[in-house]
């Protein structure tokens, strides 16, 4: 065997392996797509699996769209993402700036207090947080869903790392030029941290779009449901056709999947920054 042939064989084998693994990760979604497009005459489940819809129909997508207030839920998720993601990033950045670039009493106390929230189990916090939100009169409201999600230890941690990497000379130069701290924050620190801001935006979008437990606990009124909760509601309605559930589920993940595909090249860069230590 010539070395060239061996090289080609190895490369082909590698692609076969990668494709097989990709099928494991994408397969369940392909089954959903296929089920959601099948006409009512074609069995959803069979041995061997019958994957290609003959012909593909949009009836089930339309049925899912009307079985629950689908558009409303999508709109709610857009509102949650649109409010929570920018605000949480600004809150994290504001907190991270003095932690990274100033010296003051209580600095490490503040940092560790915020980091400690990473180790609070979500289920432990659900109960008292629900009680606190109720006491504040925010139960069953958009604000009740939004406010507790605005502090992110991950965000503070990551931005502190990034801000600490901004050269002191740049900041000192800005100070000598008479910039006050807020201007430095806005015009020096934030622009210098774009990759980190991008990754926080991406992860924030994904996590808010998919949020489930907290809205489930805090909301009574289904009109305020984010889309993930809406899908669980659709799955719970007796008599929902498996095809229509499949179609509804696929529509619910399309926005976040498309968003991710557009933004994905930023993810690894940001991750690299996150774990640099």
């Amino acid at each position, binding site marked *: 065997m010539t070395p060239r042939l061996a090289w080609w064989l190895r490369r082909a084998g*590698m*692609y076969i392996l*990668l494709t097989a*693994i*990709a099928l494991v*990760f994408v*397969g*369940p979604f392909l*089954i*959903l797509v296929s*089920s959601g497009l099948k006409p009512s005459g074609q069995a959803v*489940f069979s*041995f061997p699996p019958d994957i290609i819809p003959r012909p593909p129909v949009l009836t089930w997508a339309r049925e899912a769209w009307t079985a629950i207030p689908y558009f409303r839920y999508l709109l709610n998720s857009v509102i949650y993402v649109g409010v929570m993601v920018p605000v949480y990033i600004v809150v*994290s950045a*504001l*907190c991270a700036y*003095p932690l990274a670039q*100033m*010296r003051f009493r*209580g600095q490490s106390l503040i940092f560790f207090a*915020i980091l400690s*929230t990473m*180790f*609070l*189990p*979500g*289920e*432990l916090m*659900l*109960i*008292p*947080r629900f009680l*606190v939100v109720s006491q*504040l009169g925010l139960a069953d409201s958009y604000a009740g869903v939004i*406010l*507790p999600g605005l*502090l992110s230890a991950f965000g503070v941690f990551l931005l502190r790392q990034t801000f600490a990497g901004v050269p002191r000379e740049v900041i000192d130069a800005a*100070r000598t030029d008479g910039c006050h*701290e807020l201007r430095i*924050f806005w015009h020096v620190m934030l622009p210098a941290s774009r990759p980190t801001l991008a990754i926080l935006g991406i992860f924030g979008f994904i996590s808010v*779009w998919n949020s*489930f*437990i907290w809205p489930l606990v805090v909301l009574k009124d289904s009109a305020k449901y984010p889309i*993930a909760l809406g*899908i*669980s509601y659709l*799955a719970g309605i007796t008599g929902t056709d*498996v095809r229509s559930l*499949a179609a509804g*589920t696929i529509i619910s993940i399309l926005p976040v*999947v498309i968003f*991710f*595909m557009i933004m*994905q090249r930023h*993810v*690894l860069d940001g*991750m*690299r920054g996150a*774990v640099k*230590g």
Partner: protein
Amino acid sequence: MAVSRIPGQRWYTPYLFPLPALALFGVFFAWPAVTAIQLSFYEYDVVSPPVFVGMENFVRLIGDDRFWGALANSMLFLVGLFPLLVVIPLLLAVLVNQKLPGIKTFRMLFYLPVVTSMVAVAVAWNYVFHQQGVLNWILTGAGLLDQPVQYLLDPVWALPALILVEGWKSMGTYMMIYLAGLQTIPTNLYEAAKVDGATSWHRLRHITVPLMIPYIAVSMTMAMLDAMQVFTSVYVMTQGGPQDSTLTLGYYIWSAAFEQYDMGYASSMGLVLWVLLIVMAFVNYRLTKGRTVMP
């Protein structure tokens, strides 16, 4: 600490910036955390005012078979998720770290489940696990099963099935952490090893793994936190059944609080989980000798 003030900066400036974060910390973390500790010594059903019961919740917990069952199930999750979240993602990361045309597409496909909601993932896997579904077709076809199994309705299969779903959903996250780590390893290290005649297994064993220890440590801590708090998959797929075989601590706490409105008891279980997490995080930290890249 020497407090050196920047000229022209007022002493309170550093405290103004973190104010929004600190306010959120106080209202939605510190206050609830204190309430949770307090609540675990009370009986509280949301309707009537809380009654102080001392250690009663904890005594009840010791005699509660369902609590011990849930703890055991959570431990099984931990054991089952360990290979799926700590070991396999490292191999996946090595695979997608190669310089091949189109490798970024594969990375993205492996990461797809991370991006989608647990609810959507649960719905998708319900189709895979169906009695006439793909998994049964593969396993019976390969002769591994005599007849199709209803995975989520079978007390033996339900827990492994959920572990598989949880692991499958999160693998991409861990792969990306490892990938970020792998890209810090200088390639000339591998080239030198190749010249010395090291096989790919040797390079993995003697270069990759030792240099990846800090990342493995992070993954272990994260996997532990994830595994001990499994909730959504259980809620959407099995509700803890059949016969409590998938009742995890997370689900039991939720169900005690928001189905039985037994807030005090649920809080006491939450507190035990909290202590457990801290102990496990500490042990993990010592085991890896603090060689972690994140605190």
